[in-house]
């Protein structure tokens, strides 16, 4: 009985806190993306002949982001019937945008306006990995800043 109560409390807390955090994260992402509009990025350019470019450097950005208890519970329910797991889509969307923001911030600090050959990488980490509880994901973005 106590265990059931604890799980319920965690679900409720996870739902409210998780949703509030997600909202504020999306808001801050939108603001920062607006500020970083000056830095353009693209995923091609690996074999390009660059002209009028004098300097280049590797820039990186990454984040480890975790799912809240309610959403991972929901995901395990969806897992039974199958189909689209929207709660994880939004988590990865947050992670990718955050990593990209940090990469562009890095590029901005270095003083360039363009990042080429941007690559994304996602890895599952954390101690809950492999269990139903749903672990944390790391999203890593890297590219070459040119100026």
């Amino acid at each position, binding site marked *: 009985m106590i265990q059931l109560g604890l799980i319920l409390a965690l679900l409720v807390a996870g739902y409210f806190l998780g949703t509030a955090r997600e909202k504020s994260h999306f808001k801050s992402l939108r603001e920062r993306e607006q500020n970083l509009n000056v830095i353009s990025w693209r995923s091609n350019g690996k074999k390009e002949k*660059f002209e009028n470019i*004098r300097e280049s450097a590797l820039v990186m950005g*990454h984040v*480890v982001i*975790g*799912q809240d208890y309610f959403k991972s519970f929901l995901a395990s329910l969806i897992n039974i019937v199958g189909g689209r797991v929207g709660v994880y889509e939004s988590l990865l969307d947050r992670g990718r945008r955050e990593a990209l923001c940090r990469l562009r911030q890095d590029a901005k600090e270095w003083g360039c306006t363009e990042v080429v050959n941007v690559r994304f990488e996602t890895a599952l*980490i954390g101690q809950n990995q492999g269990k139903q*509880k749903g672990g944390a994901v790391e999203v*890593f973005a890297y590219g070459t800043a040119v100026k």
Partner: protein
Amino acid sequence: MIITNIETVPGKSIIEHYGIAQGSSVRAKHVGRDFMAGLKNLFGGELKGYTELLSESRDEAVERMIQQARSMGANAVVNVRFSTSAITIGASEIFAYGTAVKVQ
């Protein structure tokens, strides 16, 4: 040392290839950090402890790659790639590799 993940170094020409330079790093956080991350995982959001850990780890992997490239006599590493894998509970390996070259 110039590092890029494209095949050239813009504005410079490659005069010599030395082959692959690589660096890796395996790190784990202490139990307290794991516990805190586990708690935070209940409510979602960024796990700062792990972000920090992987950031240090990645810097170290890149640093080792640079050292290896330097010992070969290179002054740039091009076409750098990264890979991350969780090898055991609470520890992850970050691997960075690229082609060591000399540019001018």
